[in-house]
């Protein structure tokens, strides 16, 4: 497969810049296909968070706040929950990663999984407490935390296979990380 980055034409550079966004939107789409395997016992993981985490650490020039916003917005539209929840969660997680990039990017092996778990926990916590706040304002019950914890566990469980796919996309389409971008 052609490495698009090697072609220095503006058109290909533009396509390369779209790869993280496309990967994030694809992850959101796959996670939100409303087909329940095992009768809905297993919640769908947040596949859209994996590209945000990956490229925010590896190529922040491609994973911009606007791209994280777009992926979170797509998650909101397709997941059917309260609007804006995952948009805010993804953007704030991006902000956390952007501030602690050196710490997260230095992790490897199991520590890398734990690093992603920390980021996913932060995202789920933001989503939960935002919904809880909105519910309190509306006089509704607090949302039960168990489904959010289930989604967090599934997201972390699927991080390794998802990041393999994202890594493959990165190496084949985007190319190796460069420090001169």
């Amino acid at each position, binding site marked *: 497969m052609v490495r698009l980055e090697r072609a220095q034409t503006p058109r290909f550079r533009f396509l390369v810049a779209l790869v993280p966004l496309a990967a994030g939107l694809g992850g959101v789409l796959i996670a939100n296909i409303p087909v329940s395997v095992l009768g809905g016992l297993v919640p769908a993981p947040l596949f859209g968070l994996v590209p945000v985490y990956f490229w925010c650490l590896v190529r922040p020039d491609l994973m911009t706040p606007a791209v994280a916003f777009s992926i979170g917005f797509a998650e909101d539209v397709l997941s059917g929950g309260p609007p804006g929840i995952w948009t805010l969660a993804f953007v704030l997680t991006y902000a956390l990663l952007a501030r602690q990039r050196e710490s997260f990017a230095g992790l490897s092996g199991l520590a890398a999984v734990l690093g992603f778990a920390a980021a996913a926990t932060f995202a789920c916590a933001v989503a939960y407490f935002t919904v809880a706040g909105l519910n309190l304002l509306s006089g509704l019950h607090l*949302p039960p935390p168990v489904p959010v914890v289930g989604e967090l566990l599934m997201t972390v469980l699927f991080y390794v296979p998802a990041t393999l796919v994202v890594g493959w996309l990165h190496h084949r389409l985007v190319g190796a990380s460069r420090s001169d971008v």
Partner: protein
Amino acid sequence: MANAWKIARRSNVQLPLILVVALAVVVVLLGKAQGTLFDRMRAHATDAMAPVLEKLRVPVAGFDRFVGSISEIFSVYEQNLKLKEENARLRQWRNVAIVLQGRVGHYQALLHAVPDPKMDGVLARVIGRANRPFLQTMILDAGRQNHALPGQAVMDARGMIGRVYLAGQRTSWVILLTDLNSRIPVTVAPGNVQAMMTGDNNIMPRLEMVSHTVTLHAGDQVTSSGDGGFLPAGLPVGTVVSDGSGGWRVALLADAGSSQDVEILNFSKPPETPPASAQLPAEAAGLKPQPPPPVPAAPAPTPQASAPANAQAKPKPAAPPPAQTAPTQTAPAAEEDVDR
């Protein structure tokens, strides 16, 4: 893993990040205030995905059945015994129901009872399910072009599943009774206790707003009360169970996880028209009209005035005695209903 890659230079994203965070907060607030914008987008997205979901439904449903059947293989014998016993019991109840149906029809005819609102149904197929942390929903392959509208009740063969809360052109989303945002006014029988059934993502929704002076019992029947006019009254919902801490929950009759075909009830309550003043109060109560008073020899009334006078004077044909017609009409209908 990440050590293998060179870390890209930190880009100066602080300013747009602040703006994007602010924009995300605006989206949250906007979604709270104007949720219909998101609903329309979701409806369009689901309409576009409908053909794909239809294709995916068959293999996934087969896989679900296969996984479910693995655990059931070991309990086939016990289930068979249980089904035989249940079948015998249901046959007895069928006979009782036929008798009671005839009696109810007889009473309705005697009392001139107002008939139940007309309900049309749209049969729809479940093409998707989503179990998200903040939403439990299913997606049906019927939308506005099939006259499925938000607020309509969704039933399976056993009872109520939920309500349509978002309708696209070809698909609709159903908010399940177990969902956090579901609140249904219900009636608990016997006793005609009014309560509110609220979902909390548990498989058994909570019963709330039950008066403290009322005592519920496990096994009491829960049906929709029809309060507010959003749902028809009398839809079977479930049975009361204790939650072990003094509260009550509802064990739902319907199983949203396994339902494949459901019915969307088009509940259109007809507006109540007041009876004509000439019919009050005797005719409205079902009594025979009094004979008209003798008309004194007076100047001939004008044509405009004569019409109501004639209408009032003209006695209505007496209704056939309900006791003769009701049993013959209701008994076969009861048979049909039960057989169906």
